[in-house]
């Protein structure tokens, strides 16, 4: 993959950039949110909708909907499970694990030898540690991960959690909240 990430062509469009900036922290909770945003940007409601539709089709928006906070709902335990998977097998393994209902993220990342040998990252939320560990067991025994070197990194303290803000960083800096 290209590590010198070049902006997606859709983002060279100034209106799209301003639109993402306007919505990345959430739609306003008013009856006509798209009209509200359109007014801010000086475009029509239908144009806001069409642009969001297109950004979603192009994969820049991954999903649109309610974003929940797991912890507030009682999902207290969060284990990042890291695996050392043979390079020629990582794609198939990643697709398999990413489709498990309790896996909430599944990414391939580079190894950094000798310090860091793991190349596949999965996130598992649970009500407590035992539930997370039971799910890791399930991956080991029925998810085809038997014998695969892995570690479970439980989260302890959260020092900061914000939605990612890609678009505001190239305009004047703001302190994040």
């Amino acid at each position, binding site marked *: 993959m290209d*590590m*010198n*990430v070049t902006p*997606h062509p859709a983002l060279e469009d100034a209106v799209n950039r301003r639109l993402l900036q306007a919505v*990345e*922290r*959430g*739609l306003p*909770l008013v*009856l*006509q*949110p*798209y009209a509200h945003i359109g007014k801010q940007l000086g475009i029509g409601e239908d144009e806001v*909708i069409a642009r*969001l539709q297109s950004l979603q089709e192009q*994969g*820049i*928006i*991954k*999903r*649109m*909907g*309610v*974003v*929940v906070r*797991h912890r*507030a*709902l*009682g999902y207290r335990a969060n284990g990042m499970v890291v695996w050392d998977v043979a390079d020629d097998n990582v*794609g198939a393994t*990643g*697709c398999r694990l*990413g*489709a498990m*209902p*309790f896996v909430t*993220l*599944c*990414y*391939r*990342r*580079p190894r*950094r030898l000798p*310090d*860091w040998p793991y190349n596949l990252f999965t996130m598992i939320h649970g009500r407590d540690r035992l539930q997370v560990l039971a799910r890791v067991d399930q991956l080991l025994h029925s998810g085809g991960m038997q014998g695969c070197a892995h570690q479970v*990194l*439980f*989260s*302890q*303290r*959260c020092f*900061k*959690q914000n*939605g*990612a803000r*890609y*678009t505001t*960083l190239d305009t004047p800096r*703001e302190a*994040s909240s």
Partner: protein
Amino acid sequence: MNTPALALTPTEQRLLDEFQHGFPLEPRPYASIARQLGISETAVVETLRHLQAAGVVSRVGPVLHPNRIGASTLAAVAAPSARLETIAALVSEYPEVNHNYQREHHYNLWFVVTAPDRAHLGEVLADIRARSGLEVLDLPMLEDYFIDLGFRLQWT
């Protein structure tokens, strides 16, 4: 972080479960949700406001795909335990850092850095390295295997 899990009504549960993706792209999106839930449009908006104030809903809107817009990476440092909080505060200072967690591991501080481009990202990592005196693991996402349909909540 120690608030007990909220007791949610069946309607609130459905609102959280069924609308994490496919949010209506039409002029009155909450009206369309209201029809599916059998409540009024204003009740949908009020319930979402309530859930947001209670900290259950972070926001309603788009989840952007990492790396399609700018550059981002997952980074980690192994902070000596006596310095962990100081290092964590140093890392959280950067507006480019949006998640910062302590995890149980030799690498005990994990954070996500997001920037408009890889050069900017590299500067932030170098700065953290210089100020903390710690090596920073830089683990950018290479491939995403997860189809994000939101989080399947299990109420039982």
